[in-house]
């Protein structure tokens, strides 16, 4: 299977505080790695490093087999068109409507007529259950709708690699189930590779795939039995 993403020997410190050391994982098309861990352990920092938003203290990140730090400026722009990222706090452009937010990467990178942009964006919005919100601004949306809009913006360019920072945190169970279903269909139908931070046991179970815990500066696999029982608290160090 083609390796879409690989993180090798990553280390990162905030000043004197070491968040993680020599950690790594890889995933191919249609695979998912879910990362759990207690607050402040460095999950979001790890995800930002994986997406090239932050430089690691040590280690290397590969996207489609290419070292992410070796891209030229133009190459990086091209590579990032194949990467989707959903931030913990949605990060929608606050003075753009929901529609314009989702259409932004398409309008910027693709030379499509506006009619095709509209069709593409509407399809994404429908997949995520976003109806009648296209003219609303991000501050007019609920937490769940904002999360769905951010996911729609991340997948509208049909990326091969998707990073999600707690996609179901703070949303109602029905919306969480909808988001999980969308991620499942991205994995199976579009063979997307997904790295997802998730502390919700229900979502972790539903996403299947590999689940790891970032704890004590290391990544530890959560066994399927622990995942099934939903009890992986013993994996956290005291």
């Amino acid at each position, binding site marked *: 299977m083609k390796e879409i993403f690989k993180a090798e020997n990553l280390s990162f410190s905030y000043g004197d505080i070491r968040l993680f050391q020599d950690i790594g994982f890889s995933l191919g098309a249609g695979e998912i790695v879910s990362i759990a861990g207690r607050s402040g352990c460095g999950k979001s920092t790890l995800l930002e490093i994986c997406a090239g*938003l932050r430089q690691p203290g040590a280690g290397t990140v590969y996207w489609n087999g290419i070292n992410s730090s070796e891209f030229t400026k133009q190459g990086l722009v091209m590579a*990032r068109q194949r990467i989707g990222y959903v*931030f913990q706090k949605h*990060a929608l*452009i*606050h*003075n753009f409507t929901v529609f314009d937010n989702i259409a932004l*990467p398409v309008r910027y990178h693709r*030379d499509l007529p506006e009619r095709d942009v509209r069709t593409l964006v509407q399809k994404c919005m429908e997949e995520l259950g976003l109806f009648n919100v296209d003219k609303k601004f991000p501050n007019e949306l609920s937490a769940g709708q904002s999360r769905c809009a951010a996911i729609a913006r991340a997948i509208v*360019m049909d990326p091969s690699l998707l990073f999600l920072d707690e996609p179901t945190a703070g949303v109602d169970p029905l919306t969480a189930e909808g988001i999980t279903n969308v991620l499942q269909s991205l994995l199976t139908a579009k063979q997307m590779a997904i790295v997802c931070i998730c502390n919700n046991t229900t979502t972790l179970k539903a996403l299947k795939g590999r689940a790891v815990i970032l704890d004590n500066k290391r990544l530890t696999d959560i066994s399927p039995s622990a995942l099934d029982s939903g009890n992986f608290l013993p994996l956290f160090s005291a």
Partner: protein
Amino acid sequence: MQFISNIGAKGSNVATMLFSLAGLLYDSLAGLFMGGKKGFESSIKQIVNQILFTGVEAFWLVGIIGLLCGITIIIQAMTNMPKFGVGEYFGNILIIVVIRELGPFFTSLVVVGRSGSALATYIGNMRVGKEIAALEVMGIDPVHFLVMPALVAMIISMVCLGVYFDIIAIIGGYFVAQATVNIPFNIFMSTVLDALSWQDIFISMCKNSFFGAIIALMSCYYGLNVNNLREVPQAALKSVVGCMIWTLLINILITIVFYARQAT
């Protein structure tokens, strides 16, 4: 020793800022001229919005200040210049004071206070809300998306507001001249236009363009350097202070370059 060290640190900060501003300017111009048709088209909405906010919405304020400025200058000229036997040179005073100096400077003050601080706050909030990181991860250059449109819009707005300020100030001056010495419009205008040269118009536009560029670049620079919510109001404050200082310095520099030679 500590004093010298502090001066060195301040100098180093200013040098870093100047390099960053030069980098922002270069990247913005590269985005404007080498971004291609698609790149420019995607920025048009941003440019139009910025012009609406900076230029159109500031019309009334710039108009009022221009009117008051013209009135004040003509009152002073009409009451004091005859004492020195140069009463007929009020047109020159209006041109020298309004078009050469006060027009660009007052316009820049209005734009710094309204749009510069708002731009720094807007970009600072975007940094805190990870919207800038979201742009980066989408492969959208924040400089091309935010700084370039602000730069283009701010220059266009400043030039238009500057011309508007000059016209309103001259009209204000005419009303006072008409009310005090009953001067006919055609004589007033011919006196003013005789004093006005193409060089004055060119230099006034140069100043407005430079001020627009400084306001856009400094506001974006301080906004982009915000790291947390606490720094957002500080960024707005620093951008206002920085823009005022640098517009004054550039104003003096342009005046020296273009007009000091005439004195010698």
